[in-house]
């Protein structure tokens, strides 16, 4: 976006975003060692309790503590989204670099057409296909979101790398006798890294939304693995008399995604020297 608020204002957004994301990550990590209550422990006597001093976010229809479930659910959401971004980068970036180093070659043309082809399948449709074949699981959700991420990173890398290949310092490296492969990794990659990091945070937030959506319709994480999307799906029939079941997991998703987006926007501005200069 071309809005350029003052430096303090912009960093405030980035810091707010960073803190929100950090909270989710800390909750996920801490949940491996400690949660206020055991999420596998059923306590029917205390079912559907409203938020209280004992159960901060209330309890669900099995008497499980919602706050603890959200902490454990953070693990699923974050790990699915991170691995999916990893898959997208691990395949997309080398493909994009290779395509750019051989511009307009058969390789470039083929890679870009395959990219277009993957774009024709919305992520959810890929997930449906994978589920139809292999069944629903968190792993298949990761693969579905990951496949969708590949063309995103391939396109971005190719686009940025193409303009770099025209630059003098690349010409110098070529004159020095470096191969296209070495130039791609030693000179092009470090120069597109900023872009990749920013896109990575965007895809990370989209991954959290996608994982929640897949789990919501039963195509993602399966019981007993808690996930924010499935908590929402479970709460659907009880929203009229126990709205807290739907409100807290939903807020967890919104705040984490919002945090990632704010952080990503801030990072993009930070990496963009033009904007940094303007705000001085």
């Amino acid at each position, binding site marked *: 976006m071309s809005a350029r608020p003052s430096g303090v204002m912009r960093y405030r957004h980035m810091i707010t975003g960073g803190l929100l994301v950090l909270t989710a990550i800390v909750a996920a990590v801490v949940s491996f060692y400690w949660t206020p209550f055991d999420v596998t422990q059923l306590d029917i006597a205390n079912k559907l309790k409203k938020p209280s001093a004992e159960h901060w976010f209330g309890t669900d229809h099995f008497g499980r503590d919602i706050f603890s479930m959200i902490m454990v659910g953070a693990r699923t959401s974050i790990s699915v989204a991170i691995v999916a971004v990893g898959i997208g980068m691990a395949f997309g970036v080398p493909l994009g670099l290779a395509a750019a180093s051989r511009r307009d070659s058969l390789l470039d043309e083929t890679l870009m057409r395959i990219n277009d082809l993957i774009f024709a399948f919305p992520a959810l449709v890929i997930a449906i296909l994978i589920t139809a074949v292999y069944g629903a699981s968190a792993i298949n959700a990761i693969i579905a979101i990951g496949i969708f991420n590949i063309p995103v990173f391939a396109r971005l890398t190719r686009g940025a790398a193409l303009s770099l290949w025209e630059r003098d310092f690349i010409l110098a490296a070529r004159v020095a006798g470096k191969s296209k492969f070495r130039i791609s990794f030693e000179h092009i990659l470090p120069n597109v890294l900023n872009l990749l990091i920013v896109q990575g945070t965007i895809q990370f937030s989209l991954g959290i939304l996608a994982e929640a959506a897949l789990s*919501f319709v039963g195509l993602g994480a399966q019981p007993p693995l808690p996930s924010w999307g499935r908590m929402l799906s479970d709460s659907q029939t009880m*929203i009229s008399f126990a709205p807290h079941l739907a409100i807290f997991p939903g807020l967890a998703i919104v705040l984490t995604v919002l945090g990632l987006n704010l952080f990503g926007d801030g990072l993009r501005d930070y990496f963009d020297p033009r904007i940094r200069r303007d705000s001085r």
Partner: protein
Amino acid sequence: MLRFALRRLLSLALTLVAASLIIFVAIEIVPGDPASYMLGLNAQPETVAALREELGLNVSKPQRYFNWVGGMLRGDFGTSYTYRTEVTPMIADRLLISLPLALYALLLSTLIAFPAGVIAATRRGSGADLAVMGSTQIGIALPNFWFAMLLVSLFAIKLRWFASGGFPGWDTGLFAGLKALTLPAIALALPQASILARVMRSSLLDTLGEDFIRTARAKGLTARQALWRHALRNALIPVLTIIGLQFSFLLAGAVIIENIFYLPGLGRLIFQSLTQRDLIVVESVVMLLVFAVVLVTFLVDVAYAIVDPRLRRK
């Protein structure tokens, strides 16, 4: 222009062929025989063989692929394994809900995003701009299915303005049909409107900074005239792309929203078919969704080339 359109059409056809191959191969590797699945454990081998014959499962795989694609080209999607009826009328019935829903959502999204984007861009830095940017930031982070649940709990359960789900059918009247689609359309539209408003704002800001706008102002046009006569038209190009992309997102996103509102559209059909292992239906609906995405991309590309002749060359 014709050459450009033909070249894009060829690329569209190739993408569809490749997509159909992927979908066919993916579904073909699913273990199990549909005929045995339909008839249950105690079926006689002769009955299974007869059903396999009836479903066209006895021919070789390449032959089955060509039968499937040939059938689709004639508008025949085959026979559902579960319901034993033609898939084509099933899909057509469901499209009568999914398509209007996606279009309704697209219309709402555009109606919200345009004024919001224009206000934010023309009053950059003002309170209105901050409000638009803040609310779009939240809108983007909002999962549409959660938003749908909140809408149901407020407007259907508490206020009782709308039904919480279901569809009365178009024969009960246009108003009743649209009313049933209103909450789902809002749920689908709001997150998309947030993205669109931001694109509209940034595209308009870029255009307003261009030399030709300064020239228009220098010639004596007021800011409002320059905006309406010159800036908006030029700012629309990136916005059109996003609208095109959003249509496919809306069709795919409707898959989830339809399940929340119990709307008998393509989304519910695909999930029912998945649980019943009615793979011919899954195959056909997925192909149809891919076709919709590719077709919209093609139309956006052609619309672009009409608006901007420079794009025809590439």
